[in-house]
């Protein structure tokens, strides 16, 4: 382990690709953590899953046309969000059903398009990420998205808080809930694009939900939750990348596993919510009564 650590740091100083990989993963960890807080508190975890998968056709088409992933992904992501809303509002189809139908269809379209490209290596990288192949341009897109996300959340923190906690009050004093929702969907597609290279489409949702959910178990304040989620995102990225490099594993999978491990720790040992403390307390109370 100690030897590996030294190897990792040596490699980090030596290889530029590893520096880029680490920087991008950390950035992705931060923005996924921040956006994830709002996603889980608005009860949109499933929506996050849907949107992240639904960018696939957009990414594939952008790839074919040789333009940045960014545009195609945002367009298909937002179209899917609108489609889900349209189907569930205009029929007896419930929201979760609409999500299931729309995102799998979009995902399937994406796979068909990629099959035409006749390159399964590309498909593999888009689906599962390939952090060690991060290019300079990808890194800058990630930085841009990161700055945008942090800027938006800082500027509109107040509005995001009200419309998430009490949408009825927000609406009653004139906040445009619907636009906030769609703005969040756009941000979600951007975050997905930023995460393509580090964790890949399939596992983006883990980076959105797991660090935020871990933070949710540890605090009673949204502002603190956001910082915690970003921190857990960073830890997952750094250690995930480390394990990926040392044991030659897929980076997306190792990053997600590290954040899942942190969640498990919080689930059992969180001072206020942890199962272990709750069980111990219940046991003590019972013992007290037995006497």
């Amino acid at each position, binding site marked *: 382990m100690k030897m590996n650590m030294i190897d990792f740091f040596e490699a980090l100083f030596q290889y530029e690709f590893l520096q880029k990989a680490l920087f991008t993963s950390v950035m992705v960890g931060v923005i996924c953590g921040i956006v994830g807080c709002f996603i889980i*508190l608005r009860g949109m975890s499933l929506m996050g899953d849907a949107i992240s998968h639904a960018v696939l056709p957009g990414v594939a088409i952008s790839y074919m046309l040789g333009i940045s992933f960014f545009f195609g992904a945002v367009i298909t992501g937002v179209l899917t969000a609108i489609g889900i809303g349209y189907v569930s509002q205009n029929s007896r189809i419930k929201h979760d059903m609409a999500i299931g139908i729309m995102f799998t269809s979009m995902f399937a379209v994406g796979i068909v398009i990629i099959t035409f490209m006749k390159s399964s290596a590309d498909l593999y990288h888009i689906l599962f990420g390939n952090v060690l192949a991060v290019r300079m341009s990808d890194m800058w897109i990630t930085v841009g998205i990161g700055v945008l996300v942090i800027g938006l959340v800082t*500027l*509109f*923190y*107040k*509005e995001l*808080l*009200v419309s*998430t*906690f*009490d949408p*009825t*009050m927000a*609406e*009653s*004093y*004139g906040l445009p809930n619907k636009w906030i929702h769609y703005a969040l969907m756009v941000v979600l597609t951007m975050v997905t694009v930023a995460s393509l290279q580090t964790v890949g489409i399939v596992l983006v949702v883990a980076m959105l939900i797991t660090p935020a959910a871990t933070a*949710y178990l540890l*605090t*009673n*304040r*949204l502002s*603190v*939750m956001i910082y915690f989620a970003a921190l857990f995102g960073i830890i997952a990225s750094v250690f995930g990348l480390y394990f990926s490099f040392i044991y030659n594993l897929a980076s997306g999978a190792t990053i997600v596993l590290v954040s899942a491990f942190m969640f498990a720790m919080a689930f059992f040992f969180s001072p206020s919510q942890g199962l272990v403390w709750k069980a111990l307390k219940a046991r003590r109370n019972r013992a007290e009564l037995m006497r």
Partner: protein
Amino acid sequence: MEHALEIERLFVSYLGNQVVKDITFSVKKGSLVGIIGPNGAGKSTLMKATLNLISKDKGDIKIFGEPLKKWKKNIAYVPQRSDIDWDFPITVIDVVLLGTYPKLGLFKRPTKSDREWAQECLKTVGMENFSGRQIGELSGGQQQRVFLARALAQKAELFFLDEPFVGIDVASEETIINILRDLKKEGKTILVVHHDLSKAESYFDHLLLLNQHMIHYGASEEVLQPEVITKAYANQFSFLQPKGVNVTS
């Protein structure tokens, strides 16, 4: 005396069914009005449509003679308890602080004096010692008092409360109704969706009795006459008819 709220020929549909039909009434500034009626009478729907939270089919709503838009920030709304996620990571004081948001405007954060004002509002509802608690840790009555404090923090002219007395303890109910009476004395206008007929007369000076259509609107003692009430609740007593009891006459 000027009218705080005027509603004319309001029709509202909810999930495709028309549940509020042809409602016309006006509320004078400084009155405390209860909206009563059986389940499914459209009480909450009427309140939400008045605030434009759900769209109306037809009708005209005026606040102090002007369109609702102009007054939005001066209306405080207390939602039904069931509409709130009580696990949300937010403390009591931060909930009350939300009341200051409407008048802060974009990009501005609450200042120290806003915080002090929020704390003062908490004191008014007797919850000042709970400011650091997560809202889910409170009892139903305490939660309702915190939401009333939030409404107070908004320094509004009109107050809309949707079923504030459901599932709360007697002491909290007492506190809340006393605060509403004080607001009335300050010249504020308050509308409350309510379903407990027994206390309606002592709580409100005017009552709007509703069963999709408007049954009656007037002074409380006038509305709470048996022959008026049975008009709204008649179909709930229909099981008595085979036994020869006729309540609609």
